[in-house]
């Protein structure tokens, strides 16, 4: 892992409104290189909304956000420097895992691992040439997570990354996340089950 310079994500007083209804407000978060924040809270409190807002899919009601890379002074938009893996896996059932990942690389750019290497890290190399439609929910999830390794981006936003993963796959994901953080990456995960990494920052939504 090479690219990730020292980064710094700063979120100040973020609020998101859907129509008239304020989903949440007053979110402050400071995340440095190698840090992981877990967003927790009851169902419907806005964890996914927070991640989608940070990814830039939703407009902010108020607040500011910036991802500062200290070395690279190129001011690429935030959306081009983050990975988002949500509930929808963004995979095409009719295409093979390899094709899906090659397309993912093509769309996201800045390649790092090849599809085979990335799937191998998730111990899924044997499904490389199978259509994703044939895979189980957990295997699909792992293919979607393999996209994280395909394109090199400093900030990872994962929405319920552990869903459908078995215990072994969770351990693999934990290793991959640790590697990402170790190389100076940042990660924000919305989850009900903690990944169990040291020094995790807790963000609790809806603590009223």
């Amino acid at each position, binding site marked *: 892992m090479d690219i990730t310079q020292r980064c710094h994500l700063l979120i100040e007083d973020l609020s998101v409104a859907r129509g008239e209804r304020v989903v949440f407000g007053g979110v402050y978060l400071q995340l440095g290189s190698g840090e992981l924040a877990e967003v927790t809270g009851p169902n419907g409190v806005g964890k996914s909304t927070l991640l989608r807002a940070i990814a830039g899919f939703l*407009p902010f009601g108020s607040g500011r956000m910036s991802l500062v890379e200290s070395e690279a002074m190129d001011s690429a938009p935030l959306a081009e420097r983050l990975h988002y893996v949500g509930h929808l896996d963004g995979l095409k059932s009719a295409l093979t895992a390899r094709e899906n990942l090659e397309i993912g690389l093509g769309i996201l750019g800045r390649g790092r691992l090849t599809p085979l290497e990335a799937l191998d890290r998730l111990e899924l190399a044997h499904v490389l040439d199978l259509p994703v439609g044939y895979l189980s929910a957990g295997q699909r999830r792992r293919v979607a997570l393999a996209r994280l390794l395909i394109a090199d981006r400093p900030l990872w936003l994962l929405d319920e990354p552990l869903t459908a993963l078995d215990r072994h796959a969770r351990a693999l994901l934990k290793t991959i996340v640790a590697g990402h953080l170790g190389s100076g990456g940042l990660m924000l995960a919305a989850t009900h089950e903690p990944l169990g990494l040291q020094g995790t920052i807790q963000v609790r939504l809806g603590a009223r």
Partner: protein
Amino acid sequence: MIRILLVVFLRDVMLARRIGGGGVLGLVFFLSLVTVVPFAIGPDLRLLSRIGPAILWIAALLASLLGLDRLFQADHEDGSLDQMLLSPTPLELIVLVKCMAHWFVTGLPLVLLSPLFGLMLDLDGSALWAVAATLLVGTPAFTFLGAIGAALTVTLRRGGLLLSILVVPLAVPVLIFGVSAAQSGTVPFLTPFLVLCALGLASVALAPIAAAAALRGAAE
């Protein structure tokens, strides 16, 4: 950036080939419309060859509308659209390329086979070429105008009906100039054909911007 666009184009063509439906469906619809009309009109070859270009154009419009509702919907439903929003390539260009791939799969076969279908409507040689040439310029306009409707209805389960209502009025000018160029005799070919080209180019240039704006709204 060219590489990204090439990836998106090949992806959509590959998906259309694997999943099937889209292109062939439009073609069969086109064929069935063209075969049914002579039965409805009756055995009047003069009338048939006079209205032939118009029938081919109407068939092309309806066939183009047929597969459009899935243009962005499939990508919205499985989350691929989110990934495209994270691409360094502007969404407008991705939309442009997706439309081109869609036209390549659905529109181009119609254009290529239209001379064959024209024979079934008793068109003579020059009329066959006129129809094919006007369709070659006109069907991209249908696809791109339709993309605006497809983007606006991307979150609706059964968006096809609303899409038709939104798109058909926009497509009327294309239809008017297309048919008047194809129906040689009343007006010279070139003047309406050039207007048709202008309409086609304008829709290629402007529709991706409108469609991308609608898709950004849908991502919310």
